[in-house]
């Protein structure tokens, strides 16, 4: 049998980890071993895991810092939910409707990613980061002032003020700052799990392809990559749009698991939260993103015992972890007390 390369083995392990976690959680929840709060957290955890994977594609693989990733999640959440609500009669089957709305959400987010990518990807470093932040805020403001209603004729859209008069049997879907109330929760843990698998398959296949190597070459040295004939803008755009589409699908999954969504949920703080998952999990390491996203979504819930201090503890844990993993002195200290086993990272 051909020996698998180190990367394919790590990728295989990531798949095994995700499937095992799914099976264990499914068994636990069937046996009643999960608390009801944790049960309610399963869909958001899946959504955040996909968000972390998608942002890791931008930050870890493409090497550009994005501070507005929640904007794409927002586009996906609202586009997907509007699609799901308006297709309620046409598609009675919930899984099919969820699939279609996710595709709509991902598509709309991809379009937004493309439009934003045109100006953003011309910039570098911190300037790119601030422009993505700006776009995140712009998307939030726009969605916050968007009104969408539906009646027998079709969808009606108005901006800033609700000027529409709906026909017989019409209803408002998106109501500006009030968001979308009364969503049918059609997202399931299984759907979230499948979305994580799809995201992993897409990202791993991209990374191991010719395009993926070109993208990583741009990350490591843009000038060198350009000089060997790699079209920098094309590959940057490819990674960025893909990342936006995945974020859109995650947004749809998230919104469909809530009873109501509002635009201000997807603000700068959410973007930062996802960035924290990615950096804590390790740049370019997909399994790290998965674990960090899951652990940090559960952590505030797990700390609910001392409710008033939980966010404070969260902040301290965050700072201490960053110090412990990045300070050369502390790093060598940990290396001494936890001796590295030979080849520990390879066999596992």
């Amino acid at each position, binding site marked *: 049998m051909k020996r698998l390369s180190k990367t394919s083995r790590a990728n295989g392990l990531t798949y095994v980890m995700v499937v095992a976690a799914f099976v264990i959680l499914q068994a636990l929840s069937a046996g009643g071993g999960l608390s009801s709060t944790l049960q309610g957290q399963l869909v958001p955890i899946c959504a955040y895991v996909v968000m972390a994977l998608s942002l890791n594609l931008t930050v870890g693989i493409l090497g550009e810092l994005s501070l507005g990733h929640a904007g794409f999640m927002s586009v996906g959440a609202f586009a997907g939910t509007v699609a799901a609500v308006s297709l309620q009669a046409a598609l009675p089957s919930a899984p099919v409707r969820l699939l279609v709305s996710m595709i709509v959400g991902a598509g709309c987010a991809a379009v937004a990613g493309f439009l934003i990518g045109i100006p953003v990807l011309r910039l570098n470093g911190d300037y790119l980061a601030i422009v993505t932040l700006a776009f995140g805020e712009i998307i939030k403001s726009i969605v916050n002032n968007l009104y969408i209603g539906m009646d027998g004729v079709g969808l009606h859209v108005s901006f800033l003020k609700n000027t529409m008069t709906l026909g017989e049997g019409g209803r408002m879907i998106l109501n500006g700052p009030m968001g979308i109330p009364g969503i049918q929760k059609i997202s399931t843990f299984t759907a979230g799990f499948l979305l994580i698998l799809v995201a992993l398959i897409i990202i791993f296949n991209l990374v191991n392809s010719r395009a993926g190597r070109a993208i990583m070459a741009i990350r490591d040295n843009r000038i060198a990559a350009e000089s060997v004939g790699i079209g920098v803008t094309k590959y940057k755009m490819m990674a960025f749009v893909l990342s936006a589409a995945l974020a859109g699908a995650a947004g749809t999954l998230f919104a469909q698991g809530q009873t109501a969504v509002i635009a201000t949920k997807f603000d700068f703080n959410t973007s930062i939260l996802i960035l924290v998952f990615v950096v804590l999990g390790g740049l370019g390491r997909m399994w790290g993103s998965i674990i960090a996203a899951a652990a940090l979504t559960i952590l505030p819930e797990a700390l609910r015992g001392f409710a008033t201090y939980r966010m404070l503890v969260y902040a301290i844990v965050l700072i201490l972890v960053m110090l412990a993993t990045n*300070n050369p002195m502390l790093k060598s200290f940990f290396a001494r007390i936890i001796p590295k086993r030979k080849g520990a990272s390879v066999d596992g």
Partner: protein
Amino acid sequence: MTFLNHLINGISLGSVYAIIALGYTMVYGIAKMLNFAHGDVIMVGAYVCFFASSSFGLPPILGVLLAMAVCTALGVVIERLAYKPLRQATSLAVLITAIGMSYFLQNAAQLLWTSNPKIFPTFFTVTDRETGAVKTGISLFEGQLNLSYASIVTIAACIVIMIALTLFTSKSKMGKAMRACSEDKAAAQLMGINVNTTISMTFAIGSCLAAIAGVLLCSSYPTLQPTTGSMPGIKAFTAAVFGGIGSIPGALLGGILLGVIEILAKAYLSTQLSDAIVFAVLIVVLLVKPAGLLGKLVREKV
């Protein structure tokens, strides 16, 4: 006349942004890091001043001085504990630590002072000697042009700070050391400059300015909450980038332009979309001048 009113309000808000942006831009210039906790230092400064005057009954000027002292100490302690151990780490790691620090300050404030909004007292009032009426501003041209004392003080403070800081960085020994460090840390160290002290000093000055900005901000917009600092923080950061990050005149220009655009957009275009308009202008400026208005574009060497 209403336009002039809006313009003055815009310049006043912009002056606050400019003072906050100075903290971002100086720290970025020297430590090459985005100090996300800066916005929350503003909030701490405002709270200290609030309690100094409302609970201990100190006169406003003492309250401001106390806030400046507390924030300066806070800035130096934050730098020592959280950022200094990460001097050699990647910029992303430092960024996340700064975000963690920002969460920490916000939540600590929430525990200490609860999330109930406090109404910041109006400091800048003048009591009419004859009638005994308390005035918060002067009106000119038969009431058509209203200047609040808070705006006047804010704009004046901004001008004074700018002049003082420009003199400090160009004339004093420490200021020269700062510029040397921002140019090349290793070379500065070889010239006998203590880089660590210089960085601490930068944080001290930035945080001290943040305290002033906090008091000025809350004098014009008097709701004080643990999250008060975060949005002005983001806006000021935007202003620093707008003017060219690392440049002190850039922070002034960026801050004032941002404030004016925000107030004018609110007045003439749309209240709900004012933030979106501010950010859209930023994007357009960065596309035309990728290093900001007054930033130096560093040529890449191959």
